[in-house]
């Protein structure tokens, strides 16, 4: 029994869950209004885009790579889609707008895929490069001005609400249907990872690329799939972000990638590859969103946000690593 407890304590997921619960208790004590439907919907809304990003980043980490370009893909996609639709096809419905965004994202992901799977270049170098290129290309050739009037399809999607309500004080709360898209992404990714040979191959190449090659796994094909899929997810996240914000700001999103990777690592994915779970990833995102949205509630100044996130990363990933080291030292 003690063993089971100790084993679970050493896992990132458990730690993160405990920190989240602790945080909620603190927040609930300092602010009676914290434990309420409006806070809940606020937090869920705040995690829609971050979760899609995190699922994408987790997939790449599991395969033994790292991707920092997904935010640039998302920004490029939302801006280009809004521009294209406004100029050529303003009447396009929301689902086709999303489809177009995912196609643009997948195309950009394809570039990462060709460089990484085709030429065998290191993933961090490639995605650092494409991050800069995608962003620079958008700002130079597409535009730098905010698009405040989105195409009607995207505007409509941003206004579609699953839950809507009024607080006692007359203010409103709502949860957009975009949340359902995030749920779909999580379910689809779970299905790919657990139920397809492609998914298991992603874990296998993350465990050992050389072994994967030796037993006949199509390493290049798997890597190519990952970066195209991640591109499509990033495109989706971009469209959702601008639809919800009701504006396509080309300077948005880029810079978020480190928070996202932090969330994924907090959730137990290893930078060395081979390990990562969706449940851990979602917990990691939940913690980061809580810290970003509600640190103020427990009396920590907003300027301390990034310090708090940094401390969480050090404790959340350092503690299990330190425990693993101690166990290894004992075994020697």
């Amino acid at each position: 029994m003690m063993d089971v407890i100790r084993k679970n304590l050493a896992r990132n997921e458990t730690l993160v869950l405990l920190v989240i619960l602790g945080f909620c208790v603190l927040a609930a004590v300092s602010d009676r209004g914290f434990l309420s439907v409006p806070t809940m919907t606020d937090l869920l809304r705040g995690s829609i885009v971050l979760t899609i990003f995190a699922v994408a980043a987790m997939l790449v980490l599991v395969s033994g790579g790292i991707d920092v370009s997904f935010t640039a893909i998302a920004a490029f996609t939302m801006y280009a889609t809004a521009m294209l639709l406004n100029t050529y096809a303003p009447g396009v419905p929301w689902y086709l707008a999303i489809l177009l965004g995912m196609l643009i994202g997948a195309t950009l992901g394809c570039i990462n895929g060709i460089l990484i799977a085709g030429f065998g270049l290191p993933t961090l170098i490639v995605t650092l490069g494409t991050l800069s290129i995608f962003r620079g290309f958008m700002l130079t050739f597409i535009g730098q001005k905010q698009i405040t009037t989105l195409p009607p399809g995207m505007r409509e999607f941003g206004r579609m609400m699953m839950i809507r309500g009024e607080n006692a004080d007359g203010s409103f709360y709502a949860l957009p249907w975009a949340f359902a898209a995030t749920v779909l992404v999580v379910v689809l990714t779970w299905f790919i990872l657990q139920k397809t040979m492609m998914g298991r191959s992603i874990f296998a190449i993350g465990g050992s690329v050389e072994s994967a090659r030796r037993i006949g796994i199509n390493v290049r094909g798997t890597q190519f799939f990952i970066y195209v899929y991640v591109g499509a997810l990033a495109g989706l996240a971009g469209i959702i972000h601008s639809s919800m914000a009701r504006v396509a700001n080309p300077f948005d999103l880029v810079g978020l990638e480190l928070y996202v990777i932090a969330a994924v690592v907090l959730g137990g994915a290893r930078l060395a590859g081979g390990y990562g779970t969706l449940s851990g990833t979602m917990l990691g995102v939940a913690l980061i969103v809580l810290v970003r949205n509600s640190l103020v509630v427990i009396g920590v100044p907003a300027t301390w946000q990034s310090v708090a996130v940094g401390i969480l990363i050090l404790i959340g990933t350092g503690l299990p690593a330190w425990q693993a080291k101690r166990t290894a030292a004992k075994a020697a």
Partner: protein
Amino acid sequence: MSQMPVAPDLVSFSGVTKTYSGITALDGVSFVIKRGEAVCLAGENGSGKSTLIKILAGVERPDRGKIMFSGVEQVALNPRLSAASGIKVIFQDFSLFPNLSVAENIAFSAEISTGATWFNRARIQTLAAATMKRVGVELNLNAPVETLSVAHKQLVAICRALATDAQLIIMDEPTTALTEKEVRALLTIIRRLKADGVAVLFVSHKLAEVLEVCESVVVLRNGKKVADGPASEFDAAKLTRHMTGRDVASAAPTPIDQSAPELMRVEDLGKAGAFESVSFALHQGEVLGISGLLGSGRTALAKALFGLVAPDSGSITLDNQKIVLGDPLKAAAAGIGYVPEDRLTEGLFLLQPIARNVAIGRLEAHTAGGGMLNLQSLWGETADWLKRLKVKAANIEAPVRSLSGGNQQRVVLARWLARGPKVLVLNGPSVGVDVGSKAEIHEIIAGLSAQGLGVIVISDDLPELLSTCHRILVMKEGKIIDDVAGNAITEVDLAHRLAS
């Protein structure tokens, strides 16, 4: 009398030659492997063993010669074709996925070869369980492979090879990382496979222990086949002679002077969970062996002697001076040297030049003041030690990684000897080195002992202990259970004491 129809040999090589940019790796090698037969392919590093494996696996094409699988000539062999013909290679590193479960590791390649799109966990579990049953092993199907011991990882690799239709399993250096007991278990499994009609090719430079399950032996040296025949005609000495082309002495060491003064005394050393009440004395010029199975506490004890593991109790005295326990720097300053078992990760800076790997141990003796080094004297001394230990290196500026196992071991030795230690602790001194280098390392040990150094050899290689040690301590479950003179015991007797 009717003639029985003769089934064609499973694999036949005739006159196979392979050259790499002018260097002949294999030179007209011919041999056959029959169905359900175990063949022992012996040879030192660089004898052409790996080239032969690569040709069999279809990774390399021979320049000349004929390869036949079951009587069908293979003119354009490739990895896929070779695997489809049932030739399965188990590489020395096993090529497993540490993050995946035992079941997935076993069944993954079988699933891939079916071209499945969906991952069927139930089918994978069934196949893995069936394969393990066939091999006769029991492992937790859901355990991640990274939590398994080396021996169990090897079993997983064997099961994986058998999960797809296997006719011949090639095992590259199968026994180097196993203890005697684990080798026994492996041999039992090999017998089962043979009875099942699967042929096995052992490829190694440490083969004496697998001879008993083999039908025939092929010895390679410098790319040529120098000997072959039924396994019953070979023994360890004969194998070594063919592999090295010379006789390697394995006589007991010259006895030490009975009046040699005591050098080091270990009293009542203990570490919870590792070893307890360990006491012994080491005399000048004495070579003391410490043996025991994996988990007997020998490695922890070796590390404790050099301060890498902090003991809970007891004392170590060197030249009548008590040594501070649990501090490798103080142990080194007092005159103890330690050569770790795993040179690659613990003992060497693999990417750094050979010379620097030796020099690092002596930086403080060559300071020129103000934090600067007197490079001239440092490199002079370094080169001198490399020469004395006969390190074969074209260029001492080349990375250590480029050296053979035996030469790497010499570089580690050179580093310590340059410090002029009084006691040298050698943990597994010849793990992963070939037979020729092993004999030379044993000569070096004998030389050190003749100079009055105390040497402690920790090993489970029994012939090595018998040919180098004056006295052997046997450890079991953390305690020293036996203290025997090296010239008063046979290998069989020693093996029995270890395992009993």
